Structure formats: structure tokens, C-alpha cells
């Protein structure tokens, strides 16, 4: 691993640690409502200060997602979005922005493309890594090898139910950052963060030196401010996707998500990040 040059993701988290600023990871479903719209929206998010953009690959059976992202997946599939199409989107984005791009997918579309074919195509397109919702380190041997060979990050999830032994395994399998699920459940917004979250993040911190991003249920500036003292980044998904769902046009959607992202990034800048020396 040390032979690989660091990805844009790793470099961005290094910069964030140096500045003591909480990062903002922004999720959108690619192809919602169309791939051309996703291009505009992603560029607007990058412009608004998103530190990493997660591009969701729509899947027919998104078991880890709540209703907002489920509907987004349906819209994206209805207009014919495929994994190949999402990779083309990455390629187009990469000619216009250097924002770190993480592919966010269920396993089956990746498996059908072929793990090595996927890694090669993602690297060629200019993606920085992937997060596969429904594989854990146990089943990820070949996938990790394929990704590593192309210099791509593999981000894995840590959950409130993960034991310390599992956290250690997840930390070993992850590169770029580690994604902590804030509560048991599916994606979607909630009023308050789980009370158990600080203890969970501390357990993850004990298992890894990687940056930690916290997601699921984060939608408001006060959530982001709270995370400032705790994590390296906040992941916002359903709250952005809901803006896209409400918008009447691609331009309006891009504007709405940018406004939301700017507000959240402002809170992130105001929040006090954890003050540990950079490693």
C-alpha cells in the first residue's frame, strides 16, 4: 500500500487535518433525475465546498437505504442509468474538477461488470475509490486486491453493532477513510443524532488512524457542528437527495444542493475539529 501514491481522498483529509476543519462528504444518486443533471449537481457541490463527493450507483433492491434514496434509485433506473453510465459521468466530471470522487454501490452491479474490469474502468475514469454497501471485509478479498492494484481506495462501513474485533478488521481493510454509521437503520434524516454516537466514534478511533466520516441521519448544521469535536467529516446524503427530488429542473437542483452544502460546510468550518497532531 505504501508504494501507491495517495489518492485525492487521502490528500484532502490530510489538508483538513492540517486546517483543523471538519470535512463534508456529499452523497447524490447518479442519474437522479438524469446523468447530465448529476454532472451539474456534482460540480455545484464541489464549488460549494464538498470535500468528497459520493456518487451512488442506483440498484433495484437497495436494502440499506431509506425511502428518499430508494426513490432516487428508482428515478435513476427509470432513465436507464447503469454502472457504465456512472463511470462515464466520473470521466466527464474529472475533466472539470479535482474533487475526490467515491463510487457508492451495492455489490451486484460491480460483480456483474467484473471486479477487475470495474477497478480498471473506475481508475481510468478518474474515480478515487469505492464503498460497497453490502460487502464486509470477510467477502472482500478479491475486490480489495483489484482495487489496490489500480491505486483505488476501499472504504468500509463501521456500525454501532460492530464489535471491537470487527472494527479492527474493518480498519485493516479500509483505505482513504472509514465510514461510521451513526445509528442502526437505513439511510435517511433524523432530528437528533444517536446518543451512543460519541462512544462509537471513540471505539472506532481506538481501532484506526484513518480519518473518520460519520453518516446516516445527518441533515442539519447543528449535527455537523456536533461532529466537529468528534469526527473528521460528516456525510450528508438523503438531505441533499430530498432537495433534488423537490427541484423542478437540473439547474434548480444544483442550486438547492449547493445552498444546502454551503450551509453545512459553514457549520463545519465553525465547528471545532478534534485537535490531534497530524500523523
Amino acid at each position: 500500500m505504501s508504494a501507491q501514491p495517495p489518492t485525492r481522498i487521502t490528500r484532502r483529509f490530510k489538508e483538513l487535518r492540517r486546517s483543523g476543519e471538519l470535512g463534508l462528504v456529499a452523497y447524490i444518486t447518479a442519474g437522479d433525475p438524469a446523468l447530465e443533471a448529476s454532472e451539474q449537481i456534482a460540480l455545484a457541490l464541489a464549488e460549494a465546498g464538498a470535500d468528497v463527493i459520493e456518487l451512488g450507483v442506483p440498484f433495484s433492491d437497495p436494502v440499506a437505504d431509506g425511502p428518499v434514496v430508494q426513490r432516487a434509485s428508482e428515478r435513476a433506473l427509470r432513465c436507464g442509468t447503469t454502472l457504465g453510465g456512472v463511470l462515464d459521468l466520473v470521466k466527464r466530471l474529472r475533466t472539470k474538477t479535482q474533487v475526490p470522487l467515491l463510487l457508492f454501490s451495492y455489490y451486484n452491479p460491480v460483480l456483474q461488470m467484473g471486479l477487475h474490469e470495474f477497478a480498471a474502468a473506475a481508475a481510468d475514469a478518474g474515480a478515487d475509490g469505492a464503498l460497497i454497501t453490502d460487502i464486509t471485509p470477510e467477502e472482500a478479498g478479491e475486490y480489495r486486491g483489484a482495487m489496490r492494484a489500480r491505486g483505488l481506495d476501499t472504504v468500509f462501513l463501521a456500525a454501532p453493532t460492530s464489535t471491537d474485533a470487527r472494527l479492527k478488521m474493518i480498519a485493516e481493510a479500509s483505505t482513504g477513510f472509514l465510514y461510521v454509521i451513526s445509528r442502526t437503520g437505513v439511510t435517511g434524516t433524523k432530528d437528533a443524532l444517536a446518543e451512543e454516537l460519541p462512544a462509537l466514534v471513540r471505539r472506532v478511533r481506538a481501532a484506526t488512524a484513518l480519518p473518520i466520516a460519520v453518516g446516516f441521519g445527518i441533515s442539519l448544521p447543528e449535527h455537523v457542528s456536533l461532529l466537529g469535536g468528534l469526527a473528521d467529516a460528516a456525510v450528508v446524503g438523503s438531505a441533499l437527495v430530498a432537495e433534488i427530488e423537490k427541484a423542478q429542473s437540473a439547474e434548480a437542483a444544483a442550486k438547492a444542493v449547493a445552498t444546502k452544502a454551503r450551509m453545512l460546510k459553514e457549520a463545519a468550518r465553525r465547528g471545532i475539529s478534534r485537535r490531534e497532531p497530524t500523523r
Partner: protein
Amino acid sequence: MTATSQTWPDARGRFGPYGGRYVPETLMAPLEELERAYEAARADAEFMALLDAELKNFAGRPTPLQFASRLTEHLGGARIYLKREDLLHTGAHKINNCLGQGLLAVRMGKKRIIAETGAGQHGVATATVAARLGLECVVYMGTEDMERQRLNVSRMRMLGAEVVGVNAGSRTLKDAINEAMRDWVTNVRTTHYLLGSVLGAHPYPRMVRDFHACIGREARAQILAAEKRLPDTLVACVGGGSNAIGLFYDFLGDASVKMVGVEAGGRGTGLGEHAARLAFQAGFSGARPGVLQGTYSCVLQTPDGQIAATHSVSAGLDYPAVGPEHAWLAEQGRAEYTAASDEAAIDAARTLARIEGIIPALESAHALAEIILRAPKMRREEIIIMNLSGRGDKDMEILSKYL
């Protein structure tokens, strides 16, 4: 018995390349906990005795192995025996697994159980066991299935279960499983997911198989008593594949016993018109190995990995993936898989009703359609056992259109 055929799955939940555990991280520790609890329970003589007593006194085991003398005469070939799982309490084999997992849930201290259901038989069995054991019960069911299996919806509600309609996707079994998984991932600390077939992440395919293996164990002893020899052929319908594996499992080591799984041939061989995942030799298209709902198996899907729509007149067979152990039995050539059309299943149901006085579930009628094709080509001294996995009361609304 060969040792190898009976030692699957391996420690990682694999049947050859199939099976495994493909779920969001939140479910991993709970699945590990479930696996440990199940291992402990099956090694505990007291637990197994309790389960056996419930199967006997509450569910009605052992079920008869009936010689279908008039059907045998009518088809003019092999001697046909019916394993009468339709006579169990709630009307299908599903209760075997529900009692096993229900008692396990109690042992694990879970107060709430959730389930998915297609035809409603698993939902009814789950609601029944929840009532028997004093557990809260929520059943997820596609709204299309609620429409075609209305009687079972009422039965579940009568038993005190909450039935939640699922309006996503094809509004059938697959979508009900998605919604049950979302519930489980949210309430995993208090809730046991009582999955109803040999599907999902390890240890479900193995555990559900084990809870249904009593079907084949009994059938083996019963046929040896009746005919002094093993059967030549076993036939069962395959949706997820729980009743089929329940019948097959105890015979896997008997090389002379042929096994035939019958999938839903629906109304055509094109993708979207059927639910045949393993019967590709019969020309059904669209199945490839893939991952759906926790397990790696044969899945009906588009070239870019989206799960395909399926069709069957039978809600219990209307599902795009198949249990991983069946995929492995098919790959090894140990079992053969074929499909029966909607029409053939309905004809078969009518035949059994009129010739043997039994109205079968539309699911089981698919197996019967295969018997009707196969038995006349077999010699008169050959023996077939068919798993009559459920009774047809729930299907009367559909069947009454064909009277």
C-alpha cells in the same frame, strides 16, 4: 452416505461457491450472534426435545406418506407417494422452520419477530408461532401478493400479527424481503428476523434447511417401511427452495435417488415472464450468478446487474433468486431443475383435486405438473415421492376462475 454431500455449508456459509454473507455491516455481528445461538441450540438436547414436542403436538408431525393409488393408476407409470406437508397446522411445511426459529428467538431473548411472505404461508406460520410463544409479530408482504392471497392476510391479522403492505418494485416477495431487512437493520437489537426460506445470509440457508430436514428423514423411514427400498425420484417445487431441500437433504448421500426441483415457468421463457433460475436447460433466460439479499446464488437479472422482474401465478415461487444450496446441487448435477408453466400447474391442481381428493397449493401444483409428465415414462415398479408442501385453500380465488 458420502460425507462431502452432507457437510455443506463450510464455515463461511458456502455451498461450493454459493452462499456467504453479503449484508450491511450493521447486520454482521447479529448474524454472528445468531449463528452461535443456533449452534448452541442444536447441540442442546433440551432445546431439540422442546422443538420435537412442538412439531408433534402443535404442528402435527409426523405427516403421512400417502400412496396416491388413483393418481398412479391414472398416469400409468411409477408408483407415486405424496409427503403430506399440507396436513400440518397452518397448511404448509413452513411451520417446521417457524417453530425452530421461534423457539430460538425466545432462547435469544428477542421479544419481537418479523418476517416476509409471498404466498402468505410463511407469514401465517410465523404469526401462528408468534402467538403460541407470546411474541410481537410484524409481517411484510408485497401489495400484489396481498391482493392475490387475501385469505392469508386475514389469517395473519386474526392471529394478532401486523401485516405491512410493501408497495415498492414488483410488490411481491423480493420487495417484502427488502423491507423486512430494513426493519431488521433498524431494530436488530430487539428483533429476530424469521426468514422463511433457504435464502439470505449465512446461517439462514443452513438453519432453515436443518429445520425442514425432518421432511426427508420421515419420508425415508416411511418409504423403507412401505416399500422396503429407497425411492427412485424425489420431486418438489422450488421458490427459495425450503420444502425441496427439506425433502432432498436426507437422501443426498443416496446416489441412486434422483432429485428434481420444479421452478415457476410462468407464461414464457423471456426475462420477466418466469421465475426459473436453474432450469436454463429448458430455455429460460436471464439467470446468472450474483448477489441478492445477502447471498451469492443464481439470480434473474439484467446484463448490468439490476434484479429482474419475475412472473408466476404462484406467489410463493415468484422470486428472482434461489437458495444457494440448490445452485450448488444444480452445478454438481446432483439435482435436476425444470419448470412448469402457470397453465400446467393449474391443470395439475385440478387433476389432483379430482383424482385424489386433495386441493394442492399452487406452489406444490408445479411439482405435480412435473410428476404428470414424468411418471408415465417411468416403469411401474419405480417409486416417486413428491413433497405436497401446502394445501390450496389460500388459492381458491385464483383457482375458482378455472373451474
